[in-house]
């Protein structure tokens, strides 16, 4: 917002350009009036007061929650089984080692999901009788895999495929698990892309066609770039979700972060490793979420600024 304002201030000076903003000073010898100074002083005081209230309110809320938990009848026992420092130290290296598998799964499945999801979305928007079977297949695919619970999909693929004993087909639980994740997430992401494609106003396609672009060129140069840009936040959201769900490949026996915690829990009957694994996933998600926000903000700014690409 601030950047956009500065720019419009400059523009006003040099030409008949867009949006001349009358804010702030400049070369015209403007001196803020008494009225403005008072007004801004009042606003500053009010915002200081708001910050103070927020801080106090947060502290009180935190203290109340802490007291409720600590004074709960089962707290000493819970603390022992879920928050044991000894087990946490033991679990952390193993969990991190397992997490590397989750990260690799995320990267590979994420890329595969984006490609497959885009292909399905495009297949659903194709026109013409030749593409009828493709359209139907794509629609059936999204309907099926969006409805099928991921955990069941994983069990079918990870446990069912090896049971077929097909020659040359892998029984590696990581590969199979990754395949199942890709199948389900492609369906979600295809819908995100399709929503994006449909959100581009028909007049854009009309303009492209009137310039002589073919249907395919209009899709590639005009519709898809706008669709993808608009869908970046929901796409990253799905990737964050995929990141967590990579933990589910542990049902096939692959040793990821969750499974690494599981092994220790099974041996010790102390649940602290689960907490460790959970926190590690959260820690991995936060940068991703911040990245999402940053990308979105940057896109908005770039458009407002209108600078060179």
């Amino acid at each position, binding site marked *: 917002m601030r950047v956009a304002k500065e720019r419009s201030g400059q523009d006003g000076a040099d030409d008949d350009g*867009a949006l001349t903003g009358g804010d702030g000073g400049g070369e015209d010898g403007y001196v803020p009036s008494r009225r403005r100074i008072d007004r801004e002083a009042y606003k500053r005081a009010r915002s200081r007061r708001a910050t103070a209230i927020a801080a106090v309110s947060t502290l009180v809320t935190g203290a109340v929650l802490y007291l409720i938990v600590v004074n709960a009848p089962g707290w000493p026992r819970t603390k022992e089984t879920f928050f044991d420092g000894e087990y946490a130290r033991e679990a952390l290296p193993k969990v991190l080692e397992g997490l590397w598998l989750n990260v690799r799964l995320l990267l590979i499945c994420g890329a595969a999901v984006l490609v497959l999801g885009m292909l399905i979305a495009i297949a659903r928007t194709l026109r013409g009788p030749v593409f009828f079977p493709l359209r139907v297949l794509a629609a059936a695919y999204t309907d099926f895999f969006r409805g099928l619970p991921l955990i069941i999909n994983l069990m079918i693929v990870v446990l069912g495929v090896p049971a077929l004993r097909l020659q040359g087909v892998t029984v590696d639980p990581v590969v199979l698990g990754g395949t199942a994740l890709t199948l389900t997430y492609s369906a979600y992401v295809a819908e995100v892309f399709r929503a994006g494609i449909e959100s581009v106003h028909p007049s854009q396609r009309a*303009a492209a066609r009137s310039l002589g672009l073919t249907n395919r060129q209009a899709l590639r*140069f005009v519709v898809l770039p*706008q669709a993808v840009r608009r869908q970046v936040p929901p796409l990253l959201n799905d990737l964050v979700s995929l990141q967590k769900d990579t933990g589910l490949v542990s049902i096939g026996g692959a040793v990821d972060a969750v499974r690494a915690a599981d092994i220790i829990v099974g041996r010790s009957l102390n649940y602290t490793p689960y907490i460790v694994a959970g926190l590690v996933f959260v820690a991995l998600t936060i940068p991703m979420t911040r990245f999402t926000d940053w990308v979105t903000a940057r896109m908005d700014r770039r*458009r407002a600024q209108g600078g060179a690409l």
Partner: protein
Amino acid sequence: MSDTPVLRMESVRKTFGETVVLRDVDLEVAPHTVTALIGASGSGKSTLLRCANLLEDIDDGAIWLDDEEITDPRADQDAVRRRIGVVFQAYNLFPHMTVLENITLAPRRVHGVSRTEAEERARELLERLGLAGKAGEYPDRLSGGQQQRVAIVRALAVRPRLLLLDEITAALDPELVGEVLTVVRDLKDEGMTMVLATHEMGFARDVADQVCFLDSGVVLERGTAEELFGDPRQERTRRFLRRIVEAGRL
């Protein structure tokens, strides 16, 4: 002006569901002439232009572009559109592309012009339309009048045979209308063949060689600007023009 017409329509009929939007429309546009379509909102002006560019399928009748029947289902629609430039009421610039990218998209991707050549021509046209400094801007940084002039440049960049202008000043603030109409006047002087749907009666009278008054999808009256504005024969035309004069638009 006895050449074959650039655009010819014969008995064109177009319906949207139950509504008949165009009924038995005949039209001939000679080379290097300007045809203005006037009439109330909903009289079929925009639909007529969209049909001419094959953005809408017609129900009956036929349309020729330079003696080629473009409504023949075997005609190559993309090839037809390549020869026709369109400027829309809402500009329809591509918001994710800079002005320069908007303009060079079709020359590069459709006509196979090299990037350097396309950009050179784009800059030349921008300069001529007073937009020299705007090549790197995104459309939403421009005023309405500037956006519409960019849209005109985009349509001209492929050297179209025919230019269709669909109420191109209707979305503009009054003080920006002039800059766009000046551009159209200059194009006429250069010999561009144009069909324009417009509510700017004064402008239609100045610039048009032929004026068609549409009423409920029918070309009710047509003639030179002097004939149609000076001595309208149909009662409905007279009533329409009287309302325009009362609204202070002529």
